[in-house]
């Protein structure tokens, strides 16, 4: 894949779509393999566990083959997205992944404060005061609504334990 520096460059729609169609087909193959393991024929009590998903897997592979064919035949030179747009998307996906990944260790509240603050400061360029007010305010409101009023426990980490919440 080529890397372009101009704002109008990016992966073509055709290429990405073909890739995704192949991934879906691969998923179908995995489903077929898994079904074969579970048994696709008739057992003592009727169709075995893999019977239904086996045909589903075949459907996935077959329809992906048609989609691939249609996609490649299509006269579409458009871009999937510009590199700049993809960078925007990744600037959300990567921090969200870090946020989600750190949640089991830090608890929801601390992770959320850092995440919101980072997002507002880095992408929104807000003054620190606004950043602090919202990034602290939201988890506090969440705490009262979920844990106090509706009794839904949320993941907690060492900080919450230290605060005795």
């Amino acid at each position, binding site marked *: 894949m080529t890397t372009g520096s101009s704002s109008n460059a990016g992966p073509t729609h055709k290429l*990405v779509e073909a890739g995704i169609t192949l991934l879906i087909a691969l998923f179908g193959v995995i489903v077929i393999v898994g079904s074969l393991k579970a048994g696709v024929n008739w*057992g003592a009590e009727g169709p075995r566990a893999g019977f239904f998903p086996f045909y589903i897997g075949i459907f996935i592979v077959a329809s992906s083959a048609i989609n691939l064919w249609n996609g490649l035949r299509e006269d579409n030179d458009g871009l999937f997205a510009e590199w700049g747009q993809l960078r925007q998307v990744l600037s959300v996906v990567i921090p969200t992944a870090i946020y989600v990944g750190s949640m089991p260790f830090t608890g929801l509240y601390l992770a959320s404060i850092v995440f919101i603050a980072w997002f507002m400061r880095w992408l929104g360029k807000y003054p620190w005061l606004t950043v602090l007010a919202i990034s602290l305010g939201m988890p506090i409101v969440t705490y009262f609504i979920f844990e106090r009023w509706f009794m839904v426990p*949320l993941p907690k980490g060492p900080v919450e334990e230290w605060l005795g919440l």
Partner: protein
Amino acid sequence: MEELVNLFHGFAVALQPFNIMVMIVGIVLGVLIGVLPGLGGANGVAILLPLTFSMSPTSAIIMLSCIYWGALFGGAITSILFNIPGEPWSVATTFDGYPMAQKGKAGEALTAAFTSSFVGALFAVVMITLVAPLVASFALQFGPAEKFAVYFLAFCSFVGLSKEPPFKTIAAMMIGFALAAVGLDSITGQLRLTFGVTHLLNGFDFLIAVIGLFGIGEILLTMEEGLAFRGGNAKINLRVVLQTWKELPAYWITSLRSCLIGCWMGITPAGATPASFMSYGIAKRVAKKGNNFGKGEIEGVVAPETAAHAAGTAALLPMLSLGVPGSPTAAVLLGGLLIWGLQPGPMLFVEQKEFVWGLIASMYLGNLVGLIVVLTCVPVFAAILRVPFSIIAPLILVLCAIGAYSVHSSTFDVVLMLVFGVIGYLLKKCNYPLAPLVLAIVLGDKAEEAFRQSLLGSQGSLGIFFSNTLVSSIMILGLIALFWSVIQQGYTRLRGATASGSQAL
């Protein structure tokens, strides 16, 4: 007559002070969800579902269905004021709503949209009141083959009626079925497709999929567009409302037609979005001022809004009476019923009378409350829209994470949510519809169970699905729906051929 008595009991339930409060909270939250980008009806209901675990099922469903009504109302606000459809079903509302707002007639457009929404919903609720008990008592006789035929019809309608390429719809749907199959097999009790991963023992929860696909996916799509947000102003006063109300009865034919289209499209799981487009298209062709459509014609707001709301409401009919949801949001509500230990389907009308009729009564009241809330609070909601996306986005992401976590108190689900989000973004970009995927996850186990039980009865012969008039007629309807676009193409080609043939003569 018995239904009427039941309905009055229902009103008594819905009018309890706590339930009215829940209704208002639900509507306000719903409008917020409808207005904010990245928080759709299905996703919003999924996130807030855990909040209702501590309530009684009746109050819980009232709150969740009111969130749904609110989201339906809210979608119109952003379409008209900002030319940004808050929900897919309000895309058609932008065609004439936004030009009206630009001409300084935002108040009229909003009043027309809200009122038509209300009319559409009311029509659909009356239909549900009259038809749902009949359908349910009819469906009580269904065996596994008939049950599977109904699922078959539902999924075929998706393929035939959606505007996405049919094989992409099939692929998306089958991915959903495959995800539903992961984990414990409900009939043999055997594990399958887990590949030794313990986290997958219980399979994929569709709530996680909904929050990821619709919530996170939508935010990623919005990020691509950049963070800029264009704002507008809105004022509605009583004079404008009354004046518009005086004008509206003139469009009663459009209204009625849109109601019928909406109800039909809502019951077959095509959903609110195609209903709104279809209704707009027909109104444009039929109306006297059809040429003016797209330039700010009030009829162009009435048609899609009525149909979308009628479809959104009618989608609950098959959910309640057959256990087959007509839209992703109805699917989430169905998931809620299962969590509260209620089995959706015909037995609900026999065993849970208070619940069903309380819900139906709350539909009447909820839409009335909704109309009042949106008419009076438009400036407030429009102001919320002006909060920049770089503040809204992280808050919505955190809310999605909380929603995903609280379904099973599992942080693994939160990771899964993000994975679904990225998948949703990619699939949406490649024109794969997400609604059939979600519906297949919800209904996968039930459809499979019905399918295998029917085959058990027939010793593996597919002939069971055509063994009596009832099941064969449902299956044939399904096949017609499946090949609908092909049939339509063939018909137009045939007509084109005969037309050119007669010209040649």
